[in-house]
C-alpha cells in the first residue's frame, strides 16, 4: 500500500508553548486513522497544519510525493485535502445548498450553475440534509450544521478527509448513522484522519490509532494495541492510576 500522508518531525510553537512536538506518522491510501489524546494534547493543531490553516514551526507534511507544508490553505484544498472544524464553521449568510456549492465552485471540480446545484443536492442527500437545501444555514441546529459541513467537505472530492470531533455531541441514534456515513465515505476510497473521543466510534472505524499527549506522539499502532498501551492509559487516566 502506498502512503498518502507522511508527517515528519512536525512541530508547532505558540510563543513559549510547544503545542506539537516533533510528531511523525504516516497514513496509507484508503486507511481510517484515529488521532487520539487528552484535551490540549495538540490534535487540532496537527489538523490545522495539515490543512494549511497554520504554518508549521518545523517538520514536513507530504501528500503523496508532494510536500504541502508551508502552502496556503487554498492550495492544499486543491491538492485534495478537506476538513471539518472542531467548532463548526457554517457560512451563515448563505443557504445550506450554497454552503456546499462554495466547495464545488472553487474546489477541484469547478462546478457552477445547474451542475453545481445537482451535485450539491446529492452531497446533502448523502448526509441526510437535502430537505433543508434552501434554508438559511444559520437556522440549522448544531447537528445539522455539522452535517452541512461534512457535505461541504465531501463536495471538495478529497483524497484525504480530516474530521475534528465530527461525532461529538450526537445522540446514540445519530452516532450510529454517523459511523455508517463515515464508513461509506471510506468505501469510496477516501482516506480519513479523525480526531475523536467517542471510544465506540474509534473501535468501529479506525484500523489504527495515533495517540498524542502534551504535544508528543506516545503511541501508534492497531487500535486495540494502541488503546492498551501503558503510556496511553496513563495519559488518559493520570499517573495515579498506573
Amino acid at each position, binding site marked *: 500500500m502506498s502512503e498518502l500522508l507522511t508527517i515528519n518531525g512536525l512541530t508547532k510553537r505558540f510563543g513559549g508553548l510547544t503545542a506539537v512536538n516533533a510528531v511523525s506518522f504516516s497514513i496509507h491510501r484508503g486507511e481510517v486513522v484515529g488521532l487520539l489524546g487528552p484535551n490540549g494534547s495538540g490534535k487540532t493543531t496537527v489538523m490545522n497544519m495539515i490543512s*494549511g*490553516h497554520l504554518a508549521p514551526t518545523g517538520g514536513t507534511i507530504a501528500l503523496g510525493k508532494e510536500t504541502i507544508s508551508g502552502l496556503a*490553505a487554498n492550495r492544499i484544498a486543491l491538492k485534495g485535502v478537506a476538513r471539518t472544524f472542531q467548532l463548526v*464553521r457554517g*457560512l451563515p*449568510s448563505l443557504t445550506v445548498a450554497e454552503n456546499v456549492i462554495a*466547495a464545488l465552485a472553487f474546489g477541484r471540480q469547478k462546478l457552477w450553475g445547474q451542475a453545481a446545484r445537482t451535485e450539491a443536492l446529492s452531497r446533502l442527500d448523502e448526509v441526510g440534509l437535502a430537505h433543508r437545501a434552501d434554508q438559511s444555514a444559520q437556522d440549522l441546529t448544531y447537528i445539522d450544521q455539522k452535517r452541512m459541513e461534512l457535505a461541504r467537505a465531501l463536495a471538495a472530492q478529497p483524497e484525504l478527509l480530516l474530521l475534528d470531533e465530527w461525532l461529538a455531541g450526537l445522540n446514540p441514534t445519530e452516532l450510529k448513522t454517523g459511523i455508517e456515513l463515515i464508513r461509506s465515505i471510506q468505501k469510496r476510497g477516501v482516506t480519513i484522519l479523525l480526531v475523536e473521543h467517542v471510544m465506540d466510534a474509534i473501535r468501529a472505524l479506525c484500523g489504527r490509532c495515533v495517540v498524542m499527549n502534551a504535544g508528543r506522539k506516545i503511541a501508534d499502532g492497531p487500535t486495540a494495541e494502541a488503546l492498551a498501551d501503558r503510556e496511553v492509559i496513563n495519559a488518559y487516566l493520570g499517573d495515579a492510576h498506573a
Partner: protein
Amino acid sequence: MSRILSSALFIVIVAALACVPFVADSYGVTLGIGMLGYVTLATAWALFSGPTRYVSLATVAFFGIGAYTVAVFSETIPYPLLLVTAGAIGLAVALVVGLSTLRLAGVYFVIFTFGLAELVRQLVTWYEVNVTGTLGRYIFLPVTPEGIYWQLLGLAAITFLISWWIGRSRIGLALKVIGDDEIVAAHCGIDIARVKLALFAISSVIITLVGAIQAPRWTYVEPTIAFNPTISFLTLIMALLGGAHRLTGPLLGAVPLFLLFEWLSANFPNHYSIILGLIFIAIVFILPRGVLAFAEENWRRWRKTEIKNLPAVAE
C-alpha cells in the same frame, strides 16, 4: 419574468436620464453631473467594501489621480485616450496598493487608505512645487457639460451592470464566502487575496474614471481640490446610508444625500462640515446596515401585525 422586468426598467431609466440634458437648464445638468458622479462613486465603493467589509477611505486618492491625469496630459493625449490612460494609471496604483495593504484588517486598513489619499496629495503637491514650479493647472478641453453628463451616465450604467453581474457570478459567491468566514473560504480553495485584489482594482478603476470624466468641469485644479478628503467621506456615508450590500443601496443613499449636501453647502456654508459630521454619526448609529435593510425589517414587522389584525372570516 422579474428579470426581464428589471432589465426593461433599467433600460427605460437610463434612456430617460439620457434625455435630461435636452430639457434641463445648465443648473440642472450641473446637478445631474454631481449626482451621477456620487452615485457611481458610492456604487463602485460598495462593490469592494460591501462584501469584503473593508472600509476604504482611498476613494479620493483614485478620484484625484483620475482628475490629475487629465489635467497633466490634456494637451498631449487626445481625449478618449486620456480616459484610457487615467484608467490604466488608476489600475496600476490599485494593484500596488492592493498587494501591499489587503493583508491589513479592520481599522488598520481604514487608516492606511486615509493615509494613502493624503500621501498621494502630498506627492503631487511636492512634484508640482519642486519640479513643475506651479501648484495649479488649467484644463482646457472641448468637452461640454452635456458630454460629461452622458459619459458619467454611461459609466454609472456600466458600474451597475458590473455590480449586478458580480452578484450572480462565481466571484460574487467567493465574496460572500469571504465575508462570512475567511478560514472556510480558504479551505474551499478560494484565493482570498486574488479575489479581493480583483475587486479592489475594478472598484478603483471606476473611481479613477469618475475623477477623469469630471475634471474638465473645474477648468482649474490644484491638489487640495482634486484630493479633497470630503469626497471619500461623502462616498462612504452615501453607500452606508443606502446599504453597501445591495445593488441599489448606494444609489438610494447617494441621491438624497447629494441633494441634502447641495442644499446645506448653499445655505449653511460655514457649518457645512459640522452638519456633515453629525449626519455621519447619526447614520452609523441609527442605520448601521443601511436604510434598505431597515425598511425591509420594518415592512416585514408591519405586514405581520397587519395579518394578525385581519378580521376573521365568517363561516
